[in-house]
């Protein structure tokens, strides 16, 4: 298994979820990171704390919840999770359809986030990310591309 697929595995892709509000969505994101062995409850709590300083909404219906700088010590291993909310979740006035939850101590996840940034720059790909119907779709959209020099 490549390091990338360990970072975001099919078991961390959750489709068709519902959440009444941002707090509930963050609870689910935190619980997912705990469930896959990426972090402890204390890190899950820090997702809420981080949102109170600046929203992690990044555009195109996507938010990237993660902990605070101080909460890094509660990360067990670097991992990401994908949570899809087809009905949308109100996120401080924006509507979020996808959360990409992040637990990372250093640079392990940079390639996947770069892939996410490229997806969000392309409205058609962003739409695919929001409406993915299988874990494979999600994993292939977020697989790091070779560096283009």
């Amino acid at each position, binding site marked *: 298994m490549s390091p990338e697929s360990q970072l975001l595995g099919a078991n961390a892709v959750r489709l068709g979820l519902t959440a009444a509000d941002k707090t509930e969505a963050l609870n689910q994101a935190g619980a997912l990171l705990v469930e896959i062995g990426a972090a402890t409850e204390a890190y899950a709590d820090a997702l809420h704390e*981080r949102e109170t*300083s*600046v929203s*992690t*909404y*990044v*555009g*195109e219906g996507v938010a*990237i*919840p*993660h*902990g*605070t*700088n101080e*909460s*890094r010590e509660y990360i067990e291993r670097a991992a990401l999770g994908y949570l899809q909310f087809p009905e949308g979740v109100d996120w401080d006035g924006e509507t979020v359809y996808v959360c990409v939850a*992040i637990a*990372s101590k250093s640079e392990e*996840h*940079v390639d996947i*986030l*770069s892939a*996410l*940034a*490229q997806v*969000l*720059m392309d409205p058609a790909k962003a739409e695919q990310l929001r409406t993915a119907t299988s874990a494979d779709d999600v994993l292939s959209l977020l697989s790091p591309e070779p560096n283009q*020099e």
Partner: protein
Amino acid sequence: MPTVNGSEVTKVIVACDAGMGSSVMVASNLRSKLRAKGIDVVHTPVNEIPEGAKLVLCHQGLAARAQSTAPNAVVVPFSIFIGDPAFTRVEDAILQGKTLES
């Protein structure tokens, strides 16, 4: 207020609260635009902006903290992570040698 001419910039710092999420994405996009020019683009937590930083990009909600961490740096705030006009302004300043200020 600090100012810097884009032609003097060799390194752009992108700062966010934890240096884990949004700054990584912004740095990635900016790096792809500035790579050809040989500009280094790095991401960092806002409290750990390196000494000697000349140009810092960060979310507007963190701009005051970034400026206090790096009083001599030009801090350019942005409000959205994808497609904010601030990114274009920084790219233009670097590629065309225009002046930026905090």
